[in-house]
């Protein structure tokens, strides 16, 4: 983080790259790993009541690239933050009301993740469409999860979302 000046909101210095007005009310998800924004949208589902602005592969600092999502009129829940943490552990979340950041979430994984991760084991009972998948988080960094049913473990690069 050093080198960056004080960060008033998740809308960092490179925000003007996307030509949208500041958010009056809603959520800004910043510093998503480049290429994960569409996955994050699918995690959030289709329940949107306002404009959704997506920035893909934006410059972030000198060498890195990132995605960013601004969602109008919807405040992200801690549960959703946890899910997004699975695909982009260093994302930042800012809840905006009246143009001000009123809350910031740091991603934290819940101990149990339901119906979000696909179990790649073909002889796992959860591959029956009638059974919801469940994974337990054994380690967060680097990520390691274990299927509640077949007890196989998956590392971050093996995790595939449903």
């Amino acid at each position, binding site marked *: 983080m050093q080198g960056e000046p004080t960060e008033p909101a998740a809308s960092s210095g490179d925000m003007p790259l996307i030509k949208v007005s500041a958010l009056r009310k809603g959520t800004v998800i910043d510093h998503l790993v480049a290429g994960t924004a569409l996955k994050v949208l699918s995690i959030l589902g289709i329940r949107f009541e306002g404009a959704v602005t997506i920035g893909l592969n934006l410059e972030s600092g000198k060498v890195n690239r990132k995605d960013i999502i601004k969602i109008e009129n919807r405040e992200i829940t801690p549960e959703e933050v946890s899910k997004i943490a699975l695909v982009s552990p260093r994302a930042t979340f800012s809840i905006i009301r009246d143009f001000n950041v009123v809350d910031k979430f740091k991603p934290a994984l819940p101990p149990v993740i339901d119906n979000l991760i696909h179990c790649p084991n073909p*002889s796992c*009972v959860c591959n029956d469409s*009638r059974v919801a998948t469940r994974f337990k988080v054994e380690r967060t960094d680097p990520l390691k999860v274990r299927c509640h049913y*077949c*007890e196989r473990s998956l590392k971050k690069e093996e995790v595939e979302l449903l």
Partner: protein
Amino acid sequence: MTSKGTDTISLAGRDLVSMRDFSREELLAFLDAAEGFEGYDQPILAGKILGTLFFEPSTRTHLSFTAAMQRLGGQALGFADAKISSTAKGESLADTIRVVENYCDIILVRHPLEGAARLSAESTRLPVINAGDGTNQHPTQTLLDLYTIRQKRGRLDNLKIAFVGDLKYSRTVHSLIETLTHFDNEIFLISPQSLRIPADFIEELDARGTIYSEDEDFFSLASDVDILYTTRIQQERFPDPVEYEKVKNAYRIDRATLDKIGGSVTLMHPLPRLNEIATELDDYPGAAYFDQARNGVTVRKAVLSLLLGIDRV
């Protein structure tokens, strides 16, 4: 769901689905209880029914559990093959369990799919025992192995325990190695390169601080090894039959092999054996594989009684 008190451990009403669900103290509670069931056959489970749901056949496990239940005066009913159950008609596992729970007091499930016992346990208020779910778990096998080790060596810590043969696919070996991380032992993993233990288990041994070593050479074992746990090496794991023959003979244990490593090792095998252990060793004082089978009934008597919450009288 955990009913562990501060001074006593109660296992009544618990499921026995995976060894991962139990603490060291709870494992010891199973083993301690089993000692009391050696040769014990009072009808304490009279009026109780064990539902035996074998979605794939396993004659030994079925017989062993049925013997344990009947020795204690209980009854067993169920099916020994999915072909004669409603699953053959496409009924979901959860539905089968919900129907069967009306006929019995405790449910035993054997299923080819991994996680099937867990799913069964979530579908009923009755205790569920996993009698093998695919390549995942077979907890009473692990308990009877621990019981046999303690019976033969008098302890579960400070032992040198060698696993020999197919360490890649053997459910029995995986579960026992994982469970032994609750205790303080030195583990030797002897297998051909192509049948090494999966990285996941190595990672777990590292995380738990267990001392272990891997080797291909059987004779790398020192003479002070306490337990030699061998497993079947199945021909179908080898695309090349010549390779299979080589490996098969490299890990075959007979009197000459034992003389070469010396010591007074306890020989274990989950059975059935092919030719991993020569029959000439059956009267060797350390041969424990038939004791394992006998201990299976003893341990299962304890498991049934503990989960049903019925003490010996």
